């Protein structure tokens, strides 16, 4: 019985553990809990260590680790959960707030006044299918092809989900910024 060789400590730290922040961050966005995120990140790293021979050298190790994380998350939590957000994905009317921020407040004010926690809270409130692609793309910088492989969906699905996720989040952040008094509401909106 010959086992494929495990990576040495230096190699594993350099190739995999260097992405622990990304794995933990993503786990936090998926699970919504720091304790579960630690647990998921740890299990992901253990699985990566054991499955190291399956990692193709030269490919994006971060994308590989985030895929392991996603599968771990699904196996652990989603099995028992309903996914009600599946139904309304196409109902969401996407549109940019670009036109709204033109007149009342400069666009820069909108971006400058929102802090990390407010943005993260808005991301966490997105439907799971949207949150997932947005985090993989806009927080972790994966390509459309890497995201498609990770969530096992066609690139076209990634594109349309990402579009909707970005516009939906933008709209939420805009409404929040108006409510918090960070920016002025455009005058001609009711």
């Amino acid at each position, binding site marked *: 019985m010959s086992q494929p060789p*495990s990576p040495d*400590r230096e190699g*594993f*730290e350099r190739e995999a*553990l260097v992405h*622990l*922040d990304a*794995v*933990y*961050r993503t786990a*936090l966005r998926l699970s919504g809990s720091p304790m579960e995120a*630690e647990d998921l*990140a*740890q*299990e992901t*790293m*253990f699985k990566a*260590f*054991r499955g190291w021979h399956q990692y193709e050298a030269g490919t994006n190790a971060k994308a590989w680790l985030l895929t392991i994380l996603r599968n771990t998350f699904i196996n652990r939590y989603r099995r028992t959960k309903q996914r009600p957000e599946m139904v309304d994905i196409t109902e969401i009317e996407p549109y*940019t707030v*670009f036109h709204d*921020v033109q007149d009342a407040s400069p*666009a*820069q004010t909108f*971006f400058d006044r*929102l*802090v*990390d926690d407010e*943005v*993260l809270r808005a*991301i966490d409130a997105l439907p799971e299918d949207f949150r997932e692609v947005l*985090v993989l*793309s*806009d*927080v972790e*910088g994966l*390509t*459309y092809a890497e995201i498609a492989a990770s969530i096992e969906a066609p690139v076209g699905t990634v*594109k349309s989900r*990402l*579009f909707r996720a*970005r516009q939906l*989040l*933008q709209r939420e952040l805009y409404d929040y910024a108006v409510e918090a008094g960070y920016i002025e509401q455009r005058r001609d909106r009711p």
Partner: protein
Amino acid sequence: MSDPDAIDCHAAADQLYEYLDGELSPTVESQIRAHLADCAPCFGLFDFEETYLRFLEARTRAQGAPAHLRRRILDELFQHPEQPPRS
């Protein structure tokens, strides 16, 4: 004379995020770049959305894994290498 390769505002807006994400072919990318150079409203929109994506990245990447988690993983994996964790 209109350029046969020229695209309109609608076509540009349709590919807004693919353009900003660097997911288009060089040909389409240069068509859009040419349109943006000529069209102030589209340029404004693209500029706004690019700022938005940079803003998202800047506000969401500060959070890192706790130091004890990194230590624990390394300890589990390399203190007892003859017994890889089973979790």
